[in-house]
Structures are given as C-alpha cells and as structure tokens.
C-alpha cells in the first residue's frame, strides 16, 4: 500500500511544483501589477504545498525534498502535462489556472477525508489556500469570458482541455486507493470537476465542448512528458547542480 500512497503523493507534489514554477514566471510580466502579485502569491502557495507533500514522501523513506525536486529528470516526474506547458499569453495561463485549480480544490476536498490521517490533515489545511486560487480564476473567467475577449478565451479553453483531461489519468494503484478509502479516484474527481467548471462557464459566453469527444493527453503520471518539461527542470536546477552537495 505504501507504493500506492507514494504514487499519489508524487503526482500531487509534482503538479504543485511545476504549476507553481510556471506561475512564478509571470513575476514582472503580468498584464497589470495586481496580476503579477496574484500569480506570485499562487506560485508561492503551490511551491509551498509541493514542499509539504515532498516532506510526507520523505517521511515514507524518499530522499529529502530538495534532492527529489531538483535532481530528477523529466521521465521521473509524475505531473500531468497541463502544468508543464509554457505560460503563453495571459488567456492560456488564466484558462489553465481555472481548469487546474478547480480540479485541485476538489482533489484536496476529497483527500480531506482520506483514511491516511497525515494526508487528510494536510489536505484540510491546504484546501483553504486553493479555494482562494479558484475564486481568483472564477472572477477573471467571468470578466474575460464575455464580449470582445470571449474568443481569445474560447481558443485557449479548446487548446487546454485535452491536457486538462490528462489531470485525471488513473494510477495503476487506482482500485487499491479507492477500496482502502485513501482517495476517491480520478473518475469521481473528473465528474465533480466537470460540473464545477460548467457552473462557472454558464455565467460566461464560453462554450464547453462535449468532453467525451476529446482525446485526453495522458502519460504525465507515468513519466511521459511534452518537450517542455526537461528544459524547465534544467533551468530550475541550473544553480543547484553547480554543486548539489553545497549549502546554498
């Protein structure tokens, strides 16, 4: 069962680290100062959350968080491909943030009832942070998902959705996690997520395509990534790898 739990923790930790890293790239470049600040806050929360999950993994015998985060290659990362895509324009970053954070909020709410008490405690603590991220995304989606900017957001939505469905790629331990009440499973998460994003989108002029017609872009959970992840990791570890044994 430990392997199943580790697999679950790795995908969450890696998701948070990579989306946090991407969000931080907006620092100094946002469409307005307030958005620079907002994306930076979310980036700090998410990188901090990833650290908390790497610490749980460390308790289960994995290497220390710095080594795990800064020394692995792309094929050892379990994040979904959605989070590793470059930030692109603000429309894409916003839509990704909306799609990802709704899923994260529901995932953390589900994990708040996990049979593994350490996970449940952490999820209960972090879900409060994620709720603010979701509120931020919803405000902007409602603001920009109408009128002259609707088309930009619609295109970004259609581009991001197949990747977003990759969030819910099932683990090989899926049934074990569900039957042991550790996690309710990706399918349950996806169903709730769909209804959650639909509720917000109906308040905009955006159209949610029929998700059953889309092919999810999967593989991330098993170390299969787009060409964007390895350069991100190379950049992230550039200084650390100058001397991994050094105290920075």
């Amino acid at each position, binding site marked *: 069962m430990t392997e199943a739990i580790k697999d679950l923790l790795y995908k969450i930790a890696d998701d948070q680290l990579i989306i946090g890293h991407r969000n931080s790239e907006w*620092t*100094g470049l946002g469409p307005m100062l*307030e958005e620079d600040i907002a994306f*930076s806050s979310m980036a700090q929360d998410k990188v901090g959350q990833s650290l908390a999950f790497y610490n749980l993994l460390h308790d289960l015998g994995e290497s220390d968080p710095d080594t795990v985060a800064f020394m692995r290659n792309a094929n050892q990362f379990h994040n979904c491909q959605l989070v590793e895509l470059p930030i692109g324009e603000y429309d894409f970053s916003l839509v990704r943030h909306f799609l990802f954070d709704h899923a994260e909020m529901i995932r953390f709410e589900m994990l708040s009832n996990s049979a593994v008490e350490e996970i449940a405690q952490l999820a209960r603590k972090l879900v409060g942070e994620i709720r603010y991220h979701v509120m931020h995304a919803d405000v902007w989606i409602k603001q920009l998902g109408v009128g002259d900017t609707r088309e930009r957001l619609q295109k970004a939505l259609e581009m991001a959705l197949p990747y977003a469905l990759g969030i819910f790629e099932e683990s090989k331990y899926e049934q074990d996690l569900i039957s042991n009440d550790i996690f309710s499973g990706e399918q349950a998460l996806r169903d709730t997520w769909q209804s959650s994003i639909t509720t917000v989108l109906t308040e905009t002029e955006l159209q949610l395509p029929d998700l059953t017609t889309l092919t999810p872009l999967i593989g991330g959970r098993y170390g299969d990534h787009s060409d964007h992840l390895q350069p991100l990791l190379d950049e992230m570890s550039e*200084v650390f790898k100058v001397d991994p044994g050094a105290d*920075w």
Partner: protein
Amino acid sequence: MYGGGNIFEPSNHNDVLNEDPVKLQEFEARIERGEKIEPSDWMPKLYRKQLIRMIEQHAHSEIIGALPEGTWITRAPGFKRKLALMAKVQDEVGHAQLLYSAAETLGKSREDMISDLINGKSKYSNIFNYPAYTWADSCFISWLVDAGAIVNQVANSKGSYGPYCRALERICIEESFHLKYGHHCVIHLATGTPKQRQMMQEAVDRWWAPMMHFFGPSDKISVHTEILMKWKVKMASNDDCRQQFLDMYVPKIWELGLTVPDTNLKKNEETGMWEFTEPDWEEFKRVINGDGPCNEERLAVRRMAEERGQWVRNALKSADMKYVTPLA
C-alpha cells in the same frame, strides 16, 4: 529597492516667484513644523512636479528592479531560496503598486507614468541597467542594493509628503526582510565551497562600481537641490547616504572574507569619513542616458509586457468608468 541619485529637474528660486506668497509662506511654515502635506492641501507647482518625478522614478525602479532578480526565481537553488525569492520580488512589485498610487494622489495616472517609462521619458534607478549574470549577483542585489535603498528610504520617509512617507514606512519594513534574506544568501556563498566563494567575489567585483553610483553623483557636482531640501522632498545628500552605506556595510563585506575592488577604500579614523576612488561619473551619465549594458533590454521587456497585457486592461474598462484618484 531603490536608491538615491534621483534625477531632479534643475530648479531655482525663480520657479516659485509666481506662487502666492502668503500660501507659500504658510506651506513652508507647516513643513518647518514637521507637518505632513496631504493631497488636497495647497502646494507649489514645483513641489508637485518634483514629487511626482521622484515617486514615479522610485515606482519604476521597483518594477524594473524586479526583472534582474525575477530571472533567478526559476533558478533559485532549493525550496528555501525559491520560496523566499518569489516573495521578495513580489514585494518589490507590491512596492511599485503602492508608489504609483502615492504618485497618483498628485494627479498623474499610473498609465501615464508607465507610458513615460516605456518611452524613455522618465528614469529608474541606474543600477538595474546592469546584468545579473549569476545567482551570486542576485544575492548581492538582495543584500546590498536593498541595503542602499533602505539608507535612502529611511531618510525619505521623514519627508514632507504624507502619502509618500506612509508608503515608504511600509516599504522599509519589507526591505529589511529582503536585506536579511540577501545577507543570509551571501553568507552561505562566502563561507561555502571554493566555487561558491568565487561566484560571490566575482559578483562583488562586478557590482561595486554600480553600487557606488547608486547614491548619485557627489553633491559637489549634482544639480542644486536646496529648495527641495528645504521642502523636505530630498532628505539626505547623496554623499551622506553613500558614507552611511559604506560605514554600515563595508565592514560586513570584509568580515565575510570578501574583498572590495577599490584599493583606496578605507575609513579615515580622524575624520570618520570613508575615502575611496572617485566613481566614474561619465559612465554613470552615459548609462543613465540610455547607453548601459541592459537599458534596451529592460525597457523592451517592460514594453512587451505592457503590449501583451493591453487586451486584458482594455477589457476592464467600461464606457461610463471614471478615473478615480486613490485615497491617500
């Protein structure tokens, strides 16, 4: 972060000849008594103009300063540094937000200020026209550039314009955390592996000249600022700030086993003043007028960000929207 060496417009007493003498006298008496001037109070045109110019330069310095350090957020070695640097640079952007609001109380909109920045009409701290080549450069900035900024800002927070003083008080508290973070990073490099020590020494060597320029030209050669001192717009002389910085930080740099690339640098124990090689003020002028290693790149990045974000800002505007000056 930010330093002295504000670029004031040359001014003299003729600029205030057209002001109402009674109001002017009352204004100057209030400042003399240590009162703060608030946005709706009467103030001379020159006071308004120079304050806008100074606060605007400060705000620009915060957002431009976020660029050289911002590039190291994605490279920061380890969780502790990554989280701290993100928060630090975010603070700087927050300072820009506060300062643009303070300047807006004087009647110039943030949009106009940013547009003047991008068009090269308004300046920012010269030090950000130099590149941060390595992680150690970003550590130097966090420690010593922010330390220099604190010297200047603590002085300015005792100035006469209420909104600017209040913004500076808050900024200084945050900057003091940045300084601690930067010092912590530099200590780790300077007492680390040979490679780390070499990185740190090279950063000190690269940044020393810009750091000496940071406080602006010697008061002997800079424009006359007597009236600005009287009005408590400019609170400390460039030379005083530089001396204070050297006195506080050179011993700390030496303590870490680092050297400063100026063989003439020493404290004259008799006068209590630091002696040093006169900085190259021709280079300072050349860089501040646009010909530094990074001027074009910094403005190009800012311009790109403004252009790419234009559609978002436009979407927030509505036909019946009115411009609102922020509350002081």
